[in-house]
């Protein structure tokens, strides 16, 4: 390094031009890993589609339920699981009833995982029975069933017909929440969190036939294809990729603070956003440095 300084600035740029790619890898590794362990505060600003979904859920009538359809599998978990968690927190914090369904077998494990985590958060600060989150009263995890079409349409008539027992094996007929949530008429919005095209299936069946409001949580890659559904109003809001999750987490955090629920939760989307942002800035800087170097060395040659 010292030698390159005496060789002059041009030598430095030239060398930078042909820098070993492993330095680039190392930088990427560090800028992603360090913020994961020690996140730096970054305040996501909600984009309009995220704000739209949040506002709708926040202001829908108290007696309407939120359904989350866990339509992703472990390979897209990093991007999508934080959305499920944030939606659950928002609903429980504002005393909304929540129903969970899975359209794939993978969704079962992920749905259970999400419920367990958020339930623990609320239960650990609950001082009264009413404050804790109770299966069958505050939420029902209906589970998974096949075929898909029968499930999507059947739930519009009577959910207990489609799911006689819930994921934990309880008879759905006997659950207190069933009295309030019988079919789609009692549902304010269904949010399909999916790495696949499942949100479109929900629109095609549950929305066109029953007028059910559909929200969409999806990966960053798929989001580009979904904007048409958002613009046409078929989706009430959309969370796209880790950023969408982080923005929803931020809105939920602010809401919970206003409600005096100031306990700390693990906002994985926001956590990853610091990594995400750091990596983006690193790549942008690489490109800038690469081009400065390119012009610096070219000028010398000419």
């Amino acid at each position: 390094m010292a030698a390159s300084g005496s060789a002059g600035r041009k030598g430095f740029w030239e060398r930078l031009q042909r820098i070993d790619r492993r330095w680039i890898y190392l930088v990427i590794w560090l800028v992603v890993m360090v913020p994961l362990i020690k996140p730096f505060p970054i305040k996501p600003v909600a984009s309009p589609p995220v704000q739209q979904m949040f506002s709708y859920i926040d202001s829908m009538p108290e007696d309407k339920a939120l359904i989350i359809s866990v339509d992703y599998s472990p390979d897209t978990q990093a991007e999508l699981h934080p959305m499920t968690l944030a939606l659950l927190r928002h609903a429980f914090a504002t005393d909304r009833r929540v129903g969970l369904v899975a359209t794939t077998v993978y969704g079962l494990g992920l749905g259970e995982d999400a419920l367990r985590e958020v339930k623990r958060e609320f239960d650990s600060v609950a001082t009264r029975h009413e404050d804790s989150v109770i299966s069958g009263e505050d939420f029902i995890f209906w589970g998974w069933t096949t075929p898909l079409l029968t499930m999507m349409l059947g739930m519009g008539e009577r959910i207990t017909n489609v799911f006689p027992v819930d994921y934990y094996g309880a008879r759905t007929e006997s659950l207190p929440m069933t009295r309030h949530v019988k079919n789609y008429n009692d549902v304010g919005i269904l949010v399909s969190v999916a790495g696949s095209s499942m949100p479109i299936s929900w629109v095609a069946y549950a929305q066109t036939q029953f007028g059910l409001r559909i929200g969409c949580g999806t990966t960053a890659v798929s989001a580009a294809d979904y904007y048409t559904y958002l613009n046409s109003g078929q989706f009430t809001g959309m969370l796209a990729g880790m950023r969408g999750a982080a923005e929803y987490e931020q809105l939920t955090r602010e809401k919970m603070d206003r409600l005096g629920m100031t306990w700390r939760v693990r906002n994985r989307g926001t956590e990853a956003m610091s990594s995400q942002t750091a990596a983006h800035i690193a790549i942008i800087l690489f490109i800038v440095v690469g081009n400065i170097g390119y012009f610096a060395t070219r000028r010398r040659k000419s």
Partner: protein
Amino acid sequence: MALSCIVALLLCTLPPPGGVAARDVPNDAGGKIAVTWTRSPDGSVINYRVLRQAEGATEWDTIGMAGRLASRYFDEGAGNGTPYRYKVLAEADTLQGESEPSGYAKAAPQWFNTGRIPSIIGTALILVIFLYTFQQARRGAKMFIRRIAGLDAVEEALGRATEMGRPTLYVPGLSTIDDVATIASLNILGEVAKKTAKFGTPLIVPNRDPIVYTVAREVVKESYASVGRPDAFNPDSVFFLTDQQFAYAAAVDGIMLREKPATNFLIGMFWAESLILAETGAISGAVQIAGTDAVSQLPFFITACDYTLIGEELYAASAYISREPLRLGAIKGQDYNKLIILALILGGTLLALAVDIRITDIL
């Protein structure tokens, strides 16, 4: 209106759906009748129940439910040739409103899908042009084809491999044999193999699909035979690796860094592994020629490879290298068809701007 509601309530009924009609679904394999109705004006309806009665029967059977916004139901259990009629019940929590029965309808299979007529006409037109250019080519008409940078580099790249005494790697994409990109890639493989046979450069062809593997092996063997070097064909040079996408990518990455091929061809259909392969190839210092019709992967090949055949260039490539008349004829046909597409787009736009029509009316 208010009065009718009161009457309806008194009778424990909802205003029923109206205008129930049934008819055979066209362009299908039979067994399907479409039932349509106008929705009940009452907002409390939860769903509609569809009932069916076969001619001569006395019973009405429930055949299915439809949501409160639905005004159509497909009876997919209708027997072909049996006349059925239908009734629709609007249902709320405890109330019901029953419609008048529809007329009789019969389901029947059709022999021809009239919805496909536009694409049949379009295909016929396109095919006629191709057949014409094939004919021209057979007669020996001169076929010009412009320079394609990536393909001019093939010879040079293979020459480089020979000079360096290093092998050439050819990845024929990760798709199956019925993917046309794979066929195009195998055609190019045939031409590349002829040159490696002449130069005496070792060729490595790892495969992801077992059927593609069998064809690729035949193609390479044939190329070696056709240039008079059947003895130089190494049966182990074309092999199957694994069906798992990323296991395949891992293994090809390993080959790139261990065997150090001087030239890599990444030609065919690719998914997310495109950049994994191309970047590893760049690390190994190989000259890389890529080509794919997977539009979403092209940006990665363009950034990481020396030459990239974009989309259609992949299909033009085997004609370009082999100069075989019929293949050149196909290129000519493609160009004529592009002219027609351009004419349709520009003409259609001018027409649609001049007079107020919808595109669905003309196409």
